[in-house]
């Protein structure tokens, strides 16, 4: 049920947002395009760091990497 509520909220945000003009223009995104602004600058490293944590913690999921995982423990 929580998942469905989250998706409904996403849906509402999308519908509301269809009429919104982008407030950051493409030519204003130089800072955001800098590699130091990437959430996962080096996927090979991010994947390993995620594996180290998941193997030693009870929590799992919603990590910053690409997802998919190996399913291994």
């Amino acid at each position, binding site marked *: 049920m*929580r*998942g*469905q509520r*989250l*998706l*409904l909220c*996403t*849906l509402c945000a*999308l*519908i509301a*947002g*269809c009429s*919104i*003009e*982008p*407030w*950051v223009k*493409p030519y*204003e*995104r130089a*800072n*955001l395009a*800098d590699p*130091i*602004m*990437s*959430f996962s600058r*080096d*996927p*090979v*490293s991010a*994947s*390993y*760091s995620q594996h*180290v*944590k998941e193997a*030693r*913690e*009870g*929590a*799992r*999921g*919603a*990590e*910053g990497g690409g*997802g*998919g*995982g*190996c*399913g*291994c*423990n």
Partner: protein
Amino acid sequence: MHRLLRLVIVVLALVSSASLSAAVLPEERADALYHAYDGGGVEISGPSVLVRKSIGQSMSVYANYYVDNVTSASIDVELYASPYTEKRNEFRAGFDYLVDKATLSVGYGNSEETDYTADTAFFGISQDFFGDLSTLSMSFSVGSDEVRKTGDPTFAEPIDRHAYRVNLSQILTKSLIMGLSWELITDKGFLNNPYRQVRYLDDNADIGYSFQDEVYPGTRSSDAYALRAKYFLPYRASLHAEYRVFDDNWGIHADNYELGYTHPLYESWLLDLKFRHYNQTGATFYSDLFPRRNAQDYLARDKELSTFSSTTVGVGVSYEFAKNGWGFIDRGSVNVLYDLMQFDYKDFRNALVSKEGLAEPGEEPRYSFDANVLQFFISIWY
């Protein structure tokens, strides 16, 4: 779950009808990494090689080969088993495909140990909209594992895994981007470690306690939500912050936060600093010392299911070379990352102390350990 999938389809249909713009494929690059973990009597090291290549204008393929070489004399192993070595090989491959201005992702992974096999298939879709200010990603993965037991050729138990994930990343200003993630994971099958034991009070035992096999529930379901942000500082540096909260139906509640800073040095160097703190409560069926044999239906003494906290401090240095290209290489980087992790367990005691007769069972000091985690990798873009 079918209602959930229908909602996913509706959302995707609406996203597709929103104002669209072109997505881009991931960069073409190759990474060769060496990793080394040393902590709590466990040493794990090995390589990881990740290669990504575009095919035409709309497809990008990747492959990853990863190895864990494990030497374990952990506190559990010292308590009731013998130190061992093992090797885990993992292979992943997949592709991303641009279609109708969305990115479709498909992947497959296999992990092999002498006593464990895991196969995972992955499907995802990602869409930029609102003039590229927002990116919505959804993915689904299904896994099938087989748990085996060394020394018992008749033992083979399955696990079925499913994961559903939604991620929304949002550009808020010229210098601030945020991400919101949710992931639901369900497991069904043989979820405990076939070797791990719990301990229980036993007056007939010399050391005051005896051991029996763990027994876990046959299902587990968990939700995790994460909010992360990245901010560009005016002098070209970046700050990042993350908060994640987690709950499962085993009674584990966890949260963690992370703060990080990336600072360019001179022309070609990058310095990364991070601090992370993690907290969790234990599973309802966890106990460090059960009062008697078969004290309850489910029994666990896995310290990862106990109440504990951990703190990580990390530093990384990267050097970029061949910035103007060299042969077929557009650029490259050499990277070293080091993390110090500290684990403090609230209800997992160092049972080796009572095994040596230096404390009564249940009165041993609480267990803690530090781990050193090193990564060294070279990346090239082409």
